[in-house]
């Protein structure tokens, strides 16, 4: 789980952690800034690998457990690599009654992943969400910041193709 991609040599580890060092500048010992630091680190790395969390804990003078506790509490933080494209399928009440479940099943089938998983090529991460506030477009999904509404399962392959390039 959450293994860093930095390889084993000290040199490549240093290179891998260089952007994090920049993020951490000015935050040394500032325990109250843990959440913004985690957000910035996740923006940089796409997720929060163990090595990154350790560095953050050391820099903010926290224990690994304390940081891990915060990371696992908030659903915004991820310990696994995430796809380039994040698909959020709405299963709120309106989408549910208008076939959101079938849309989700079609995406699962197309990508070969389950809810909450990431494709092996790291192109897509699939998540179901409770409501994205676009009930008028139900059933609706979001891919990154794009909204796709009034969907039927047969429209899914063409939409996904746009993001595969």
């Amino acid at each position, binding site marked *: *789980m*959450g293994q860093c991609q930095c390889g084993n040599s000290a040199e490549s580890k240093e290179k891998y952690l260089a952007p994090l060092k920049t993020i951490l500048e000015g935050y040394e010992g500032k325990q109250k800034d843990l959440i913004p630091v985690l957000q910035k680190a996740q923006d940089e790395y796409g997720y929060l690998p*163990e090595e990154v*969390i*350790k560095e953050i*804990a*050391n820099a903010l003078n*926290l*224990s*690994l*457990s*304390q*940081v*891990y*506790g915060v990371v*696992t*509490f908030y659903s915004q933080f991820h310990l696994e690599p995430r796809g380039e494209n994040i698909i959020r399928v709405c299963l709120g009440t309106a989408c549910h009654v208008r076939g959101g479940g079938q849309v989700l099943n079609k995406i699962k089938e197309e990508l070969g992943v389950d809810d909450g998983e990431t494709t092996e090529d790291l192109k897509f991460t699939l998540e179901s969400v409770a409501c994205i506030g676009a009930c008028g477009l139900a059933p609706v999904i979001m891919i990154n910041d794009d909204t796709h509404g009034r969907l039927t399962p047969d429209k899914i392959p063409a939409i996904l193709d746009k993001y595969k390039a």
Partner: protein
Amino acid sequence: MDTITLTIDGQQVEVQQGATLLEAARELGIEIPTLCYHPDLSLHGSCRVCVVEDVKSGRLLASCVAPVNNGMEISTNSSKARVARKTNVELLLANHPNDCLGCDRNGSCELQDITHDLGITRVDFEGEKRDLPVDASGPSLKREPNKCILCGRCVRVCEEVQGVSALEFTERGFNSIVSTGFDLPQSEVNCANCGQCATVCPTAAITEISEVDKVWAALEDDTKHVVVQTAPSIQSSLGEEFGMEPGTVVTGQMAAALRRLGFDKVFTTDFAADLTIMEEGNEFIQRFKGEKNLPHITSCCPGWVKFCEHNYPDLISHLSSAKSPMSMFSAISKSYYAEESEIDAKDIYTVAIMPCTAKKFEKDREELVGDTDAVLTTRELARMIKEMGIKFETLADEKYDEMLGAHTGAGTIFGTTGGVTEAALRTVKEELDGEPLGRLGLGFEGIQEASLEVAGQTVNVAIANGLANASKLLDEVRAGNSKYHFIEVMACPNGCVGGGGQPLPTSKEIKQKRALGLRSIDESDSIRKSHENPMIKKLYDDYLGEPLGGHSHHLLHTKYQKRDRN
């Protein structure tokens, strides 16, 4: 400060503003059951077992966190409060494994006690039982998250008292558990193995890794010569396991019980504490005269040593290189004792009875492995005595065996905060200026200091118990503005009398009674200075030569290792 007047169960009480309802009730002698509350820790208010009714509003309040208000009318036992309290405990039980009979804490479990006290005979809720993995990776502590009721006492003691935070709440909602970073095994994290978590855990979610079976096997093995050493602090705590008052001195009955268990020789770690003073005292004198590696910091506490290795690796050179009394004893048992008794060292099996869970870790350290064969906590020893059917309280006093059983009052007070300092200074002062040490007048506070004149120079000493307190002193050393020459650190509050392996339940009052028990032994001892222990003198004359000499250095000193902060 302003006072507040309120009524609890029809009785008026006046308390300080800011007090909690629980404190106000206790002022009146009214007991309210609690689970997540702990007097030594910050307030949490999560278990809702201590709910009481605010009569005017009809609201239920968690008394451990709810502050008092003027004119409040509180009922601790209205039907509404009693039903809610009972329901809250039943909800905890709905998710709790129903295996009390086979549980380590059967008989000393707070959840079990509350269930009994509230008259809960059945649980009508069918809750989900979790099947989370048990972490028995050792070497000191076992975590069984299925038995955890999420009271958070372990998390708080680890953070607030020890400054370690090896344990933390992770995940959320029903998935919440107390765990380590990345759920790493206990053996791979920054845990000091002090076991304070185990002493505050109301259930058996955290317990020591038991070595009782190993010791039974050794005792039953005819080819083994099994010797046992008992740590100083056990003498005034073991009796609690057999219904005696905390602080009762049971040295003689303990020696008798150990013989009944089948140990070939019954010795005492107090002897090795005297030996530690000879080595460490002379090491301090060397450093003090040479002004090198000061402050000198004690190293007999394995929880403290590991904490230092993780958090102050730059200060390792300040640690005494002397092994702890336990490891010195074990090394001597397999060298000098083996030769004197004409027993092959490989046939000697050395068991240490310790108040401590971290001693199990110390035993397995790569620098010390092979010295000690098994470490039992005070609780584990009591379990063996009970299993054997020995009526501890009726045993007649017996004495330690000769040779490694000779002890002094100095060795005995090693078991309480300040004791190592006092024992060391009794010897150091006499060695330097020939004058005996006056009273140090130490109490039980988390950080204490003293100054004394020795041979025309001032020696400043500081004592810390609890690792968060130790950090305060160590941060000064690191910053280069520490005025101390000698620092004693014990990881557990009040020192070894408050150790992670001591009888349960425990409290500040109980720990202090145990400490007073040790002091009473010291005060009545005919020999109170380590360097006057006749067997210690003989050991140096016959075998070791001089303190810090070649032979001593090889047998009685050790090294430390830098460890990652996280």
